[in-house]
């Protein structure tokens, strides 16, 4: 397959793995956090962790959009879905995420109209096709998916679609990274930066990581050889005493990002005072809501939402996992009370969640007792 096979070339992968081995100092562990859940998934799916020397420890980061949605927001979405005459359109991953009582999947079985879409534009099309119903799109995701929501809002306004709204849960990548870096004893030495977010915001948006916190960051694409090359670039920076943002994903990411996408976001979305993150608590200025000018499309203003804050289940350590302070297999309920089939925490739901990725692909190789607690 063109444009894929080139990036999964076993010979190239082996030579990159050899280069990585040549760049580490025996016994000196470098902790590299892959920020994005897509990276976590790729690492386990291709068995990349097995290609790395023990001196490179991968730490999973907060960049799984499903994983950071708190239970209270899921309950709000269920309340919208259970309103008479309303269809809730959502990405498939959100369907199984547990709220306080149950999930959208169970709400659907009780009679709520929940539909899986692949794009917010598909939700808008549903609204056009079914003028007798109100269609609400459950928007989640970092800056990666926000532009699609923005374009959809602009189109809804342009076409005057009056039976459409967005329940906006878009979040920003910078605040959780700062939260992790400011956690006392943060043991992350370097970052594999999120390629898709960077496609929108640009690689320059991550300069705060080296400049304010002294950690190198390499914006990376998602294929196996991309990830290996990014790890090699990080190790080379450390070996040469450099500390900067490097862009491995040059085939897509520009330093300034996608200015059209950013403009669409600015026109439709505004910064919230604060937002609750699963496992991270309330982070100031960390999420986007819908601008006042587009209030007619804002589900939070159209529906009376429960808006409750719910504590995470006590046994669940998603917060520790999302911030790289705990490995999935170190959680007390991993693989027992919490499995992909019956997830307690969000990290076990999405295939990008560190726990689900590890449970599904890798759980054989890391006996608990051999593991050191990160961070």
């Amino acid at each position, binding site marked *: *397959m063109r444009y894929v096979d080139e990036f*999964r070339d*076993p010979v190239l992968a082996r030579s990159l793995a050899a280069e990585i081995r040549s760049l580490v100092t025996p016994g000196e562990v470098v902790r590299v956090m892959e920020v994005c859940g897509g990276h976590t998934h790729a690492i386990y799916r291709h*068995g990349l962790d097995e290609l790395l020397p023990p001196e490179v420890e991968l730490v999973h980061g907060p960049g799984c959009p499903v994983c950071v949605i708190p239970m209270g927001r899921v309950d709000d979405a269920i309340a919208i879905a259970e309103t008479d005459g309303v269809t809730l359109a959502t990405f498939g991953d959100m369907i199984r995420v547990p709220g306080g009582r149950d999930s959208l999947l169970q709400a659907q079985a009780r009679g709520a109209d929940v539909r899986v879409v*692949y794009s917010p534009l598909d939700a808008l099309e549903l609204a056009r096709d079914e003028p007798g119903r109100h269609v609400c799109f459950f928007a989640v995701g970092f800056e990666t998916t926000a532009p699609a929501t923005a374009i959809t809002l602009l189109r809804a306004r342009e076409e005057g679609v009056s039976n459409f709204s967005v329940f906006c849960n878009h979040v920003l990548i910078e605040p959780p990274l700062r939260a992790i870096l400011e956690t006392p004893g943060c043991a992350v030495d370097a970052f594999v930066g999120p390629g898709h977010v960077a496609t929108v915001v640009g690689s320059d948006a991550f300069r705060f990581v080296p400049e304010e916190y002294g950690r190198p960051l390499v914006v990376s694409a998602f294929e196996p050889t991309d990830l290996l090359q990014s790890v090699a670039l990080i190790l080379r920076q450390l070996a040469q005493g450099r500390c900067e943002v490097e862009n491995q994903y040059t085939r897509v990411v520009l330093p300034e990002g996608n200015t059209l996408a950013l403009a669409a976001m600015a026109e439709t979305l505004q910064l919230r005072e604060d937002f609750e993150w699963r496992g991270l608590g309330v982070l100031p200025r960390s999420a986007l809501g819908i601008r006042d000018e587009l209030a007619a499309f804002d589900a939070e203003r159209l529906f009376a939402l429960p808006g409750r804050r719910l504590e995470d289940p006590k046994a669940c350590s998603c917060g520790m996992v999302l911030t790289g302070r705990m490995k999935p297999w170190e959680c007390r309920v991993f693989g027992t009370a919490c499995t*992909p*089939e019956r997830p307690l925490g969000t990290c076990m739901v999405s295939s990008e969640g560190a726990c689900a990725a590890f449970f599904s*692909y890798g759980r*054989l190789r890391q006996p608990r007792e051999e593991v050191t607690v990160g961070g």
Partner: protein
Amino acid sequence: MAEPRRRRPVLRDELVTLAHGAGGKATRDLVDALFLAELDNELLAPLGDSAVAPPVGGRLALTTDSYVVRPLSFPGGDIGELAVNGTVNDLAVAGARPLWLTVGFVLEEGLRVTTLREIVSSLARAARRAGVVVAAGDTKVVERGKADGLYVTSAGVGILDHDVELGPGRVVPGDRVLLSGTLADHGMAVMIARGDLKLEGDVESDTAPVHELAASLVGLGDAVRWMRDPTRGGLATALNELAAQAGVAVRIREQALPVAPAVAAACEILGIDPLYVANEGKLVAVVAEEAAGDALALLRASPLGERAAEIGVVEDEPAGMVLLDTALGGSRIVDLLVGDPLPRIC
């Protein structure tokens, strides 16, 4: 000598109505003019409450399956063909020679009669290809909105002509895993045909009867241990069930898995793993190590098995698990699927 036949009535209705399910004249016309016209055979023609079959010497295999695919037709096949091949394949991988099928149709009021005729005609063609006789049938009509066009349930009876015992209990470490062809064609063809994804691609369902492939492997005698047709849930699910039931590990090689380029591309775009996508014309078999070469040659000798491959090996540990050696030299677990990425594909 058959009795002289009365003339077949002509079905003038354009749409299926509730009257076609009421058991009266309209039902009779539908059965005579459509079902019998397409499926006529000696067992079905008397239209009795039961078809009475001649005695057969040997153990029987019985199976049943329901088909609810949406859309009813898709590149490479339709629900009628699927209802034959799916049930024939369930018999075939049990080591049986398929003999008879029964089919039950649930029709939705408002279904076009021409659509129904195309599907029944395709079902009849598939039955002839697989050498099975549709010996009994039933039709019901439900109100508009209570079914998605039509649903079919088929049951099948087959005979075991040999004394080969197939089953997970016979699988031992060292055995080889063979796959008869490319993965994921059916599931991706249906997904693309649905049009929700605005994806176009040259992908056709692989729906086909695998009874001849299966029979050729059964000819190897005790060297063939276990067979399955990896339909819903795909190869990953079939192998996980094997690993769990046999108490063994199954290790497969990513690079040995045949996937057509267009299917691989569609899976890549949608983030779907072809290991979990349904196949409707493939079989996966476990054979003794020393018979693997012969078994592969037998599969490849048939047009349906041209792309057959040895994809893995049975091991002792970790019991109950399926592992995959990635093309890059790593490895990972191939777990059971949670949830359903592609509902209503068969």
